[in-house]
């Protein structure tokens, strides 16, 4: 095999600054689910109250949908995609192929966040990591409490970048992009996106 030049992907693809949308905050924390002590829990929170938020999603078409997928889909069905103000994500454990107890754990994650923001059906949940293991709910529930109680939310670049880091598994760099756009009317708006993924990647979502 020919020698392969190593590329410093982190310095190439991770931004050092950015402009972020109004009325959103990002919070993250190392709950202890990841054995190496890295960030593994994140929450995106809508703080804008001038009008109700809207939400949309696409999900895996894998027949064995994980508990967070089933629950998030249900939240969108019940809410009609309106009034969803938070997304809670953990990494390190996928809460997949965990049956009824997995669904209860996902509900508990959502329930803790809903209680903090004082709304029903206002939170989507995602998990990523090892398949076939139960979530360590004591650590995750306590982590959510800490993010809210210690107000670990921020709207600066570091807060968004840490959120992007908190969802990583085998990723070698966090994936965060943000852009400002101008419409013909002169209205300016912002898109911010985060993603994670490095393996088991050939999605076909609907």
């Amino acid at each position, binding site marked *: 095999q020919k020698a*392969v030049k190593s590329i410093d992907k982190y310095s190439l*693809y991770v931004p050092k600054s950015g402009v972020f949308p109004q009325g959103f905050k990002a919070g993250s924390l190392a709950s202890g689910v990841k054995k190496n002590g890295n960030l593994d829990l994140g929450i995106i929170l809508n703080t*804008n109250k001038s*009008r109700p938020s*809207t939400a*949309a999603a696409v999900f895996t078409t894998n027949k064995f949908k994980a508990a967070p997928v089933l629950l998030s889909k249900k939240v969108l069905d019940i809410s009609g995609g309106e009034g969803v103000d938070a997304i809670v994500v953990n990494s390190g454990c996928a809460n997949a*192929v965990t049956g009824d107890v997995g669904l209860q754990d996902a509900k508990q994650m959502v329930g803790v966040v809903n209680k903090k923001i004082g709304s029903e059906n206002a939170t989507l949940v995602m998990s990523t990591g090892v398949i076939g293991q139960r979530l360590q709910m004591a650590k995750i529930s306590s982590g959510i409490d800490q993010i809210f109680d210690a107000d670990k939310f921020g709207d600066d670049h570091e807060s968004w970048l840490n959120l992007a880091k908190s969802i990583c598994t085998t990723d070698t760099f966090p994936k965060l992009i943000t852009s400002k756009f101008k419409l013909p009317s002169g209205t300016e708006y912002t898109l911010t996106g985060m*993603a994670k993924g490095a393996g088991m990647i050939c999605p076909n979502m609907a």
Partner: protein
Amino acid sequence: TLLGFIVTDLPIKSNALQSMLSSAVTRSFNCISVDGDMSTNDTICMLANGAVDTAVVDVTSPEYEQIKDQVTSFAQRLAQLVVRDGEGATKFVTVNVKNALNFADARVMAEAISNSMLVKTALYGQDANWGRILCAIGYAKLGDVASLDQSKINVSFVSTDGSEPRELKLIVDGVPQLDVDEERASQILSLPDLEVLVDLGTGKEECQFWTCDLTQEYVTINGDYRS
């Protein structure tokens, strides 16, 4: 697993947001492959909080199409970062299938090339193995057999660093170029970013898929992921 969120401060009706996101994902996150495996958790979601003081965007709004296009290209940028970070990947490869009869079959062919273990290992080894690309196209599960005409297909490697000739033709109108410039092929295949161009000549639709090479490192990472 693929997870992603897109948030915006525009006010967008929920049905318009869903339509916008679904359309964007069809041409972005659903057009990437690292290893051909689909997770139980893949999710992309989008929130719009309406913090910008402007009229609510609906599917009938004049700016709807423009915003949809902006969300699509934004999602493509994000999806491409996932491929660039593919486990063990050293190359980012754009598979561009153009002049196809319909988008669905263009996508099926682009996906077959992108998922082929043998194409991906050849890309890693910098081997201009056009036969494997043609093989993958040949077994792609097309919706319409008319999408593929063996006498019209063209396959090329395309450089992305500005060097010339930019396009190295491997198959022209279904005929393999047996005297292909191997030195130029090696130059293109040694680039960290390159393109495989397939011109089907059966229509006007186009699909881009993004993939990476398959390396020993991928096996190392996944041989003991659970433990």
